[in-house]
């Protein structure tokens, strides 16, 4: 049978779309739907005799009363806000510096990308050494050879939390910087020249020209960093394992422990679904408010 021209074209289009769609469905939609399915069942790996009974929203109701989950959620939110704030700030500074003309700028640009290129597990291990109470670099910088004043940074709940924030800011600021740099490079030089002729101070130039024009880039960096920060896991896994006293326990790590350590597949999946919903809501809010403005500006 001969297909009409339009039908054949549709087949062609479909065949081109298929691989991409297939991967999205297989690797994005399927896991999400499966997690939701799991979260509606009681599944305890250690007790296969219990079967996999469907329990409706029981896991979700339990999650509402779970004080550890609540604590981890607060930790996660604090982590997201502090890291995103400092990363955007540091990223802006980095971008402003490497956007200038100076000798060795190429090397500086490459060097700034190094933290971002290192796998998180490796950099977390490095930070664990830096914060070590006996041979850590940080103690050496602060106290030199007077070893008796060395502090155990990862042993105190508050400093341990600060430590993972610092490690994350160090690692991902350059990514934010890179995005902002792209924004900076779009600003035509004439604007600054005109501003100088008009007698604008460097601060005024920054406030009135640079900042408004890099706003889209800033917002994109903000979006990426927020969503990424919600997924924090490897830092905590390597540096603190959630301790001391659960002070660095974040939602993703808590869910991981429930599923992989305790074997509570159902309940652990409920936590994953929660993280997914939070990220989704955050993304939607960003896309709605930020996204429309982006298109207007862009």
């Amino acid at each position, binding site marked *: 049978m001969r297909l009409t021209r339009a039908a054949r074209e549709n087949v062609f289009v479909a065949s081109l779309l298929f691989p991409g769609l297939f991967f999205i469905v297989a690797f994005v939609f399927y896991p999400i739907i499966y997690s939701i399915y799991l979260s509606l069942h009681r599944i305890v790996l250690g007790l296969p005799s219990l079967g996999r009974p469907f329990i409706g929203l029981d896991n979700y109701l339990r999650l509402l009363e779970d004080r550890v989950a609540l604590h981890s959620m607060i930790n996660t939110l604090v982590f997201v806000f502090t890291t995103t704030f400092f990363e955007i700030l540091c990223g802006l500074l980095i971008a402003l510096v490497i956007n200038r003309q100076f000798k060795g700028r190429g090397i500086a640009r490459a060097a700034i990308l190094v933290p971002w290129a290192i796998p998180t597990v490796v950099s977390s291990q490095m930070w664990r050494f830096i914060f070590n109470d006996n041979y850590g670099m940080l103690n050496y910088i602060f106290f030199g050879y007077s070893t008796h004043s060395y502090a155990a940074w990862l042993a*105190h709940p508050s400093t341990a939390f600060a430590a993972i924030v610092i490690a994350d800011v160090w690692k991902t600021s350059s990514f934010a910087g890179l995005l902002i740099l792209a924004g900076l490079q779009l600003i035509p030089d004439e604007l600054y020249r005109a501003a100088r002729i008009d007698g604008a101070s460097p601060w005024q130039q920054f406030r009135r020209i640079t900042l408004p024009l890099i706003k889209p880039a800033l917002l994109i960096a903000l979006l990426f960093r927020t969503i990424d920060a919600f997924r924090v896991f490897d830092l905590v896994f390597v540096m603190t394992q959630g301790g001391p006293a659960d002070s660095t326990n974040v939602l993703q790590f808590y869910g991981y422990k429930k599923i992989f350590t305790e074997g509570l597949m159902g309940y652990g999946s409920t936590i994953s679904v929660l993280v997914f919903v939070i990220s989704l809501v955050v993304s939607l809010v960003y896309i709605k408010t930020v996204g429309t403005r982006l298109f207007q500006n862009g």
Partner: protein
Amino acid sequence: MNKTSIHSILKTFFAAKMYMFVLVLMLFPLFLFSCTQKERDLKTTIHFVTWKPNIPGVQEEIIRLFELEHPDIKIVREIGPHSSTAFHDLLTQKLKNRSEDVDVFLMDVIWPPEFGAAGWAMPLDEMFPRLERAKFLEGTILANTYRGSIYGVPLFIDSGMLYYRKDLLAKYGFTPPETWQDMISQAEVIVSGEANEGKELYGFSGQFKQYEGLVCDMMEYILSNGGEILNSETEKPGLAQRPALEAVEFVRKNIIGRAAPIGVLTYQEPESLDVFIQGKAVFHRNWPYAWQVSNDPERSRIAGKAGIAKLPHFTGGRSYAALGGWQAGISSYSKNKKAAWEFVKFLTGEKAQKIFALQGGRAPTRKALYDDADVLKSYPHFSDMKEVFLTAYPRPVTPLYPAVSNILQRYFSNAISSPHIDLKAEAREASKEIEEIIAMEK
């Protein structure tokens, strides 16, 4: 691109020849793979999931000897993390997915009920008859038994012990402390005395990070004060009772940041042992392997100066040591169970256990080795320690132990690192959570 050219691409794309070509491309790797499979089949490969040993070379040596005896079997080691919790996560992930890349694995003493109940570890009742089991220390066999079946063969036994600096205790005229209070006061005298001579050291080092080891360490304090974590008969947690609360309070007040540096809140075994073998601690709590490391002149600055004793207790209590140790198990999903059993038999046999003891500092699970002249020559304290090994106390026995342990870890870590929290309220909360978990088994 105009429409005709789209059509010509379409035609080629759907041409049968093209399909054949794609098909062959896809099948080619499979074909290659099946060839290599066949070649490998000549030798049975056993995947052995283990952790990086504290003393390098011992596992390699035993595997070498095994392969000499069994030239038809090849052992491939897969090395997991040192932390028991992290190792558990890795191993159960593989078993859960019915991975064929696991034949033989090491199990911590707390896992056999879980692995048995989940169907991951193969029951060894037929291969490992009662007569053979009788040759092992009783506690280690019990730890491997769940609902009447045995799921692992004990490889070595661990129990908490007190290491001390013989030279320093002698210098200040002390004998190894009987009670925890004694240990604190001795440590204080020695630390301040040494400080006057310009030598900095801590009183004590142990494992207090939020991880499995914290449960062992804290259990020893609680039990030696007459308390309990989980009553084995009523299955009620004892955390909120007076003896347990007192013991936790003691650790919070007198150990963390006082006898021991505050950094112990981040220490597992290796970090805490480093402090001791660098000569930076008077007392140290660890498992038997630390003896070998402490006396190794290449690694330790205190070789020959380390002493070993039973753990102290509280006034009115008696000394308790947490039962630890590792077992060899076989995956239910292994394709080569027979060869796997050969390896397990060898690994836990007298010859291998003797090598583990002499070179690895591991306490054997076979009773006969405690009368072995070579073993006793290297470890004169083993004859005294046999009693400790016989009475070492297991952690709560339940297939849901990992969940119980996570609650305990959270409670203990919180209790000892936050000086201002209400211990009793936290203990009650943790007990309630543990009861909820235990109720799931019913």
